[in-house]
Every structure is written in structure tokens, then in C-alpha cells.
């Protein structure tokens, strides 16, 4: 019996080999698709769940068993969110502060990043770079109280412009490091040619070099925007008055506020995620380039 089976198997070796090869490859493909699906499900489930919660009516959120798809979709949580709080104002504040801070950091880092990439002495370059890296490893909340006490004395805390300047400062070092690695890709000969053509150095920088690194600048901008939009603790400490709150500060205040349900909070979370999700969707390619070009903060 055993012998016959053995013989029948060895009769068509190439056929047998092909079957094994095919099934192994098929198993790999199935496994790969399964794992990809698993990662996708794990990534999307929390987002799905918070969106579904935000679209459920007040009572349906707290029903048992849990409903994975609401019986009736409603926007009442969103309406309530904008009614009970100045969420429109918080949103505007966040947009304003994040946009201006990111633009400010971008502009400053065009100068400093370019300069950092052009120092001929390696020593000079390394020491400036180290100073920049240093600011990246210190915890944000270490600068929080000194800034607050200092600014409160000057009457400058609880001020959107102040927050914007601080955010710009927090983004400058990273933007400079990232910027210098992009500027380093542009050969010096490109500017030298421009200088011979009669440009001064600033003109050469902005008219010749900057247009060559636009994707890198997009990465820097998107990165700063996401980080400033998401910043919580510094804003909580500095922004006390209602009309100056940013979105994360408002969400933080909801937690302790009585009468704010998970429905309203979910709606607030979903609205708070939209801008960074849009930026990520649009600039994903550039962000990935930026992250992998020697970035420090993730």
C-alpha cells in the first residue's frame, strides 16, 4: 500500500513539484492578503467606532447590547457641540495658530536650513546641528511652566499671538534639520551660476534654490501643521479664556465638564481629527519623505 502510493507520487515528479510550488505560493498570497486585511481592520476600527458613536442618538450610545451600526443616524451631537460651546471659535483659533506658526517656521527654516547645509567647515555644521537636536529631545512640558510664569508677568499669556510665536519656536529646530537635508541635495554650483548671472545671494536662494526643494518644504509645512494642531499641554496652561481656546484645550475642558456625553465628545474628536487627516491625505508622500530624511520627532 505504502509502496504503491510512493510509486504513484514519483511517477509524475514535475506535476507533483508544480502542485507543491503552486500551493505554497498560493498559501503565501492568502496569508499576505489576510495579514493586510488584519492591519487595515485594526487601523480603521477605532476611527470607525468614534465616527459611529458621534452619529448615534443620546440613548443609543448607552444601550446594551452594543449596536455596531446605529438604528438611526443623527447629527444632533454635532449640533449640540456647536450650540453648547464656541466650537467654531476654537476651530478658527486652531486653524489660525497652526497655519501661521507652520508658515513662520517654514520661512525661518528656509534661511537657517539653507545656511546649515552650506557651512564648509564640518565642525561648525555639526555644532549648530547638535544645538538643534538638543531642542528636540527635551520634553515640551519642561518649557511650559517657565514660559507661563514669565509671560503671565508680562500680561502676554492667554494670547493667540503669543501661542503662535511659541509654536513657531517649537517647530523651528525640526524644520531647520529637515530643511538642511533637503537643501544639501541642491549642488552649490547651481547658485554659483546664479551669482555669476548677477543675482545676490538672497535672490539666488529664493529664486533658484527654493523652487528646487518645494516637495521638501511641503513636507516641513505639513509636519509642523500636524504637530501644532495636536499640541495640548502648553495651550491648556496658557489659554485660560474661552475665546482663546484651541480645539485640544476645548476637548480637555469637556472631559471635566458635567453634561458632556460621549456622543458630544466623539463629535468634538471627529471634528478635531479632520484637518490633520486632510493634510495627511494630501501630503502623505511628502510627509513620508520628510520623516525618513533624518527626522527626530515622529
Amino acid at each position, binding site marked *: 500500500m505504502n509502496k504503491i502510493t510512493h510509486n504513484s507520487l514519483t511517477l509524475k515528479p514535475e506535476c507533483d513539484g508544480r502542485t507543491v510550488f503552486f500551493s505554497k505560493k498560493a498559501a503565501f498570497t492568502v496569508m499576505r492578503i489576510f495579514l*493586510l486585511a488584519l492591519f*487595515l481592520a485594526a487601523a480603521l476600527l477605532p*476611527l470607525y467606532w468614534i465616527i459611529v458613536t458621534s452619529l448615534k442618538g443620546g440613548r443609543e450610545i448607552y444601550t446594551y447590547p452594543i449596536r455596531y451600526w446605529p438604528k438611526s443616524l443623527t447629527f444632533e451631537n454635532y449640533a449640540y457641540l456647536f450650540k453648547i460651546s464656541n466650537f467654531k471659535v476654537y476651530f478658527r483659533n486652531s486653524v489660525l495658530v497652526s497655519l501661521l506658526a507652520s508658515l513662520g517656521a517654514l520661512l525661518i527654516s528656509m534661511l537657517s536650513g539653507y545656511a546649515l547645509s552650506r557651512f564648509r567647515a564640518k565642525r561648525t555644521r555639526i555644532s549648530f546641528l547638535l544645538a538643534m537636536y538638543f531642542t528636540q529631545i527635551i520634553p515640551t512640558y519642561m518649557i511650559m511652566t517657565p514660559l507661563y510664569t514669565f509671560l503671565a508677568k508680562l500680561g502676554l499669556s492667554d494670547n493667540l499671538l503669543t501661542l503662535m510665536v511659541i509654536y513657531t519656536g517649537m517647530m523651528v529646530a525640526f524644520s531647520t534639520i529637515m530643511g538642511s537635508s533637503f537643501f544639501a541635495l541642491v549642488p552649490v554650483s547651481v547658485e554659483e551660476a546664479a551669482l555669476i548671472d548677477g543675482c545676490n545671494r538672497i535672490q539666488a536662494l529664493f529664486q533658484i534654490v527654493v523652487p528646487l526643494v518645494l516637495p521638501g518644504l511641503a513636507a516641513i509645512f505639513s509636519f509642523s501643521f500636524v504637530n501644532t494642531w495636536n499640541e495640548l499641554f502648553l495651550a491648556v496652561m496658557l489659554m485660560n479664556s474661552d475665546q482663546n481656546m484651541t480645539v*485640544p484645550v476645548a476637548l480637555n475642558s469637556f472631559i471635566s465638564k458635567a453634561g458632556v456625553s460621549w456622543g458630544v465628545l466623539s463629535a468634538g474628536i471627529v471634528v478635531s481629527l479632520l484637518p490633520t487627516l486632510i493634510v495627511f491625505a494630501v501630503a502623505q508622500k511628502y510627509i513620508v519623505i520628510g520623516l525618513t530624511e533624518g527626522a527626530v520627532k515622529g
Partner: protein
Amino acid sequence: MRDKNTGFLIALMLPAFLLLGLVIFFPIIKGSIIAFQNYNLNNDLSMVHFNGLENFKAIVTDTNFKFWQIIVNTLIWIYVSLFFQFVLGLILALLLRQPFRGRGIYSGLVFYPWALSGFAIGLIWAWMFNGQFGIVNDLLMKLHLIHQNIGFLSDPKYAMMSVIIANIWYGVPFFAIMLLAGLQSIPKELFEVAEIDGANSVKKLFFVTLPYIKATIVSTILLRTIWIMNFPEIIYAMTGGGPGNATNILATQMINKLMKFYDYGQGSAVGVMIMVILFFFATVYLKVSEAKEEGIA
């Protein structure tokens, strides 16, 4: 000529350094001084004076928030998160290495958590882990893995695991992005040679792929160590460091000292401790990247 060039470049760096001085360097110095003062908003601030190492002593001997537990929590928080972020990130990167139709959209959909705030992620996962209406409890019940709801965030046995799961979820995309970039830099010829030598997929992974991206792996892990240590948002939103002291790490201890107890002196003392530890890591990181540049690592 050369001096003129250097002078011009330094002038270009001035705005950046002025701002950094104002927003980062000056506050760091001031914060380090506060760490040695009895700076507490509950007390009369005109009585603020230097008190030597009192703040550090108070933190280390605190009976409500035991210091040794905070240190152990910090290490668990960092290394358990890192381990799973790395392993899952590597698997995801390997899955994404070969092109397939819709890969761009797919990676957007799995990488998006990178763009979210730690605070929002903490809130979302707090809701998912809710002891009564949480989706995690419901799914585990449906799979018959548990028979009654678990208070994931209120039970000290489960709280650390829960915040770490949220952190892993957040960190996998970053690792996948970095490792994928590393994988794509491997020359195809290396795999062809390995195949001729008869290596199978597992052997190729351990003898070609991983050694080639070793430098990327080491530097990413070191950078993430620093970053995760500095990252209290998820814990702050989910448990606030509780129940009791169960999920308290150095960073949340500092946040609580500053924002709950208004004890700026003790809070800054924790900050100084964190900075000292991070300098150690940064030095190791620099040594490693130097080695990387010289092609040793």
C-alpha cells in the same frame, strides 16, 4: 572670502536662534532653576527660595506615588510599546514592500494614525476600553474569551496593558514608514545572490534584509525610546496615571505635579530627571549614528 561666506550663513541662522533662545533655551534654564526652588502655586510666591534637593527628595520618597513603581512603569511603557511597534511595523513594512494595486491608498489608510494627536487617540481608546459600553469588551464577549465585562481602565491589572495597546496602535505606522524606506534601499541583487545560494524567505529575512537595515532599526528604536518617554498624552487621556499609581510614568507624574497639584518645583524636578536620562540616550544615539556614518553599524 571664506569668512564672508560664514558670516552670511550665520546671519541667516540668526532668526532661528533668536526664537529658539526665547522659546526653548531660556525656559529650559529657568525650568532647571525652578527644580531647586519651593515653587508651588498653592503657597505664597513671594516666599520662593532655593531648597537644595528637597524637590527631588520629595519625588523619590513620595508614598502616594511610589517612585520605584513609576520607574518600572516607565520602562514597561517604553519597551513593551517599542517591542510591538517594531515587530508589527516590520511585518507591515514587509507586506508593503512588493507593489500591488492600490498600495498607495492602502498605506494611507493604515498610516493615518501618525497624523492624529496622542490626546485624541487616548480619548478614542478610552471609549473603546470602556468597562460598560466598550467595543473591546463586547468583541471579547462575542469571541467567548471573557464571560463578564472587564474594567480595563479602572482595574490596575489591565490599565497598563490598555494604554500600551493604544500606544502600539499609534506607533506602528511610524515604524512601518521608516522600515519600509530602509527596505526599499536594499539592492535587488542581494536577494538574487541569496536565491542562487538557495536561501528561502526566512533565511533571506534574517541574513539579508535585517542585517542590511540594521542601522535604520537601531536609530529608529533609539529615537523612539526618547520620543515615547516624552509622550504622556495617551496615558493622560485614558487613566491620568491611575488607577492609583498603576499607569503613572515619569512624564505623567510631571504633568500631574504641574497641572493638578500646581507644584512647579517638584514638577520641574521630575523634568530634570527626564532630561538627564534622555541625555544619556542621546549620547548613545550619537555614538551609533557616528558608527553608522562610518559604516560600522
